[in-house]
C-alpha cells in the first residue's frame, strides 16, 4: 500500500505541481494517475521513489515514510519504468535487465539467469539478450524497460507513460502484456498516463487529477464512467461512457434460451451460421462466463436477427440471448452498477502480440 497524506509539491519557481494530495494505492493493484498535461502526474509519481522530494505532507510505503529511507536504497526496491525506456546504450540487453540485481550484489551468473527469465516473461526472444539497445524497436525497448524494472522482484512498480511513445498497435499489445504479467505477479503498480482509455483499461483504481495538482475523483473504472464526480471528470472521460461502462459488467446474468432450430451447428455443436434461403448468415458469440455485457451486446449486433449466441470455453453453443434477454440485463445493471469483469478484455493472445512487433 502506498499512502499519500496531504502531499504538496511547490517547485522553487513557485509552481504548485501537486496540491494537498491524499490517496491510497492498494497493494497488489494497479492505480492509475490520469489527467491533462501539467496536472502533476509525473511529480506525484516521482515523489514516491524520491526522485523528487515533497514540500510537505508524507508518503508512506506500507507504514514507512519514504523520507526515512536513503534514496538509492529505496529505489532499488521499487521498479521504475519511464517513457523513453532509458536503457543503458553501452550494455547488452541482458545486462540492462540485470542492472538492479548487479547493484544488489548478486553474482553475475545468477543475475543473468534472472534477466533471461524476465526477458521471456515480457515476451522477448532470448536471442535479443546479446543485442544492444539501439538494435531493438521502440516496443521491444519498452519491454526491456519493464523487464529491468521487475528484475529484482520489487513489490512496487512505478510507470510513467511507459507506452505513449509507441504506435497504437504495439501500445495495445504492451498493455495486454502488462495486465497478463500483473495477473501473475500482483505488484503494487502506480501507472501514469494522460490517455483516459489506457487508464480505464489498465486501472483497478483511477485517480483523475486536474491542473494545479488536485485530485478530481478517485474510483474504479466502472464507477468513474457511471458516476463522474463533476463536469471536469465528465468531459475528460469523453463520449460513449454508457457503452464503455458495459465492459465492466459481466454477462453471467444474461438469461439464456435454448438454441432455435435455424441455428446451424457442426458435429461438435460449434455454430456455423443462421440458416436462410440464400445460405448461412453471419452470427456473433459471447462467453457468459468470461465476457462482458458489452461483448454480449456486440454479438447480438453481429447477427441479422439480433440474437447473440452463448458459447462455452471451447466454442460450443450453450444457448442464445434474445434481444429481450439482453434488454432485461441492461435494465438490471442500470440500477445496480455491476462488479468488475476480471478477464475478458484482458486475455492475451500471446502469439499475436509477439507477431505485432517482429
Amino acid at each position, binding site marked *: 500500500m502506498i499512502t499519500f497524506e496531504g502531499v504538496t509539491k511547490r517547485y522553487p519557481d513557485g509552481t504548485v505541481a501537486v496540491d494537498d494530495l491524499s490517496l491510497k494505492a492498494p497493494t497488489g493493484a494497479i492505480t492509475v494517475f490520469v489527467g491533462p498535461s501539467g496536472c502533476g502526474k509525473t511529480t506525484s509519481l516521482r515523489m514516491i*521513489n524520491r*526522485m523528487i522530494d515533497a514540500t510537505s505532507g508524507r508518503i508512506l510505503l506500507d507504514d514507512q515514510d519514504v523520507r526515512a529511507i536513503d*534514496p*538509492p*536504497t*529505496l*529505489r*532499488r*526496491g521499487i521498479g*521504475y519504468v*519511464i*517513457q*523513453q*525506456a*532509458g*536503457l*543503458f*546504450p*553501452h*550494455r*547488452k540487453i541482458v545486462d540492462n535487465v540485470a*542492472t*538492479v540485481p548487479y*547493484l544488489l550484489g548478486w553474482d553475475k551468473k545468477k543475475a543473468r539467469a534472472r534477466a533471461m527469465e524476465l526477458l521471456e516473461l515480457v515476451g522477448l526472444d532470448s536471442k535479443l539478450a546479446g543485442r*544492444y*539497445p*539501439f*538494435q531493438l524497436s521502440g516496443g521491444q525497448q519498452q519491454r526491456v524497460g519493464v523487464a*529491468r524494472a521487475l528484475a529484482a522482484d520489487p513489490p512496487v512498480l512505478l510507470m510513467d507513460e511507459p507506452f505513449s511513445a509507441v504506435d497504437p498497435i504495439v501500445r495495445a499489445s504492451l498493455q495486454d502484456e502488462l495486465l497478463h504479467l500483473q495477473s501473475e505477479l500482483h505488484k503494487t503498480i502506480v501507472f501514469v498516463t494522460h490517455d483516459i482509455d489506457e487508464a480505464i483499461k489498465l486501472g483497478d483504481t483511477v485517480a483523475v487529477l486536474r491542473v494545479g495538482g488536485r485530485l478530481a475523483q478517485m474510483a474504479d473504472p466502472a464507477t468513474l464512467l457511471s458516476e463522474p464526480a463533476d463536469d471536469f471528470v465528465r468531459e475528460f472521460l469523453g463520449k460513449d461512457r454508457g457503452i464503455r461502462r458495459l465492459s465492466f459488467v459481466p454477462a453471467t446474468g444474461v438469461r439464456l434460451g435454448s438454441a432455435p432450430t435455424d441455428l446451424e451447428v457442426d458435429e461438435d455443436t460449434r455454430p456455423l451460421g443462421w440458416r436462410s434461403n440464400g445460405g448461412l448468415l453471419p452470427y456473433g458469440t459471447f462467453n457468459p462466463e468470461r465476457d462482458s455485457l458489452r461483448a454480449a451486446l456486440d454479438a447480438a449486433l453481429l447477427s441479422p436477427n439480433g440474437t447473440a449466441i452463448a458459447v462455452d470455453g471451447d466454442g460450443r453453443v450453450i444457448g442464445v440471448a434474445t434481444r429481450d434477454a439482453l434488454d432485461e440485463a441492461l435494465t438490471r445493471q442500470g440500477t445496480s452498477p455491476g462488479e468488475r469483469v476480471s478477464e475478458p478484455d484482458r486475455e492475451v493472445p500471446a502469439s499475436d502480440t509477439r507477431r505485432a512487433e517482429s
Partner: protein
Amino acid sequence: MNWLIDFFGAAANWSGPDGIPARILEHLEFSAAAFLIAAVIAVPLGLLIGHTGRGALLIVVSANAARALPTLGLLVLVVLLIGVGTVLPVLIPLVVLAIPPILVNTYEGVRGVDADLRDAAYGMGLRGGQVLFRVLTPSALPLILLGLRLSAIQVVSTASVAAFVGLGGLGRFIIDGLATKTYSDVIGGAVLIALLALAVQLAFTVLDRVVVSPGVRQVR
C-alpha cells in the same frame, strides 16, 4: 624527393645519439610525458565538472585559452622564468597545450548524455559515483577519446619546440637543418613528425575499437 632520399637514405642518419631512432624516442618521451600529465589532470576534472555541473566556467576559459595561447611564447616565458637545462620548460607549455581538448571534450561528453538515461540510472538506484562511472563515462567515451586523440596529435606535432631550448627530439633536425641550410634534414624531420602524428591517429582508432562499447559506437 631527392631531399627525402638524402635524409632517409644516409646510413649515418640511422644510428648514434642524433640518429633518427634516438630522436624519435626522445620526441616520444616528451610527448608521452606531457600527454599523460595532461590526461591525468583533464579527464577527472572534465568528468567531475560534467557530472556536477559546477565549475563550468573553467571549461569556457580553457576552451578560449586553447585558441589564444602561443605555445612558443609560453616556452620562452617559462625559460625566462626557470632557465634552461631541465626538461620542465618544454613540459609545461606542452601540458598547457594538451589539457584543453581533453577537458572540453570530456566535459561535453558527460553533459551530452541523454537526460532520460541519467534519470533512469538514478531511478534504478545507482548512487552518484555509480551513475558517473557506470553510465555517463561509458556513454561519453567516444568524445573522451576524441579529446585525447586531438590532444596527443597536437602534442606530438608541437613537441619539436624542445629543440629551441637545446633539448632533443625530432625538432633538432628542423632547427639544426635550418641553421646549416641542410634542407634534406628539415624536410625529413617534418615528414617524421607527420608520420608520428599519423601513428597516433591510428593508435587511437584501434583503441576506440577496443574500449568503446559497440552499443555506443553505433549510436554516434
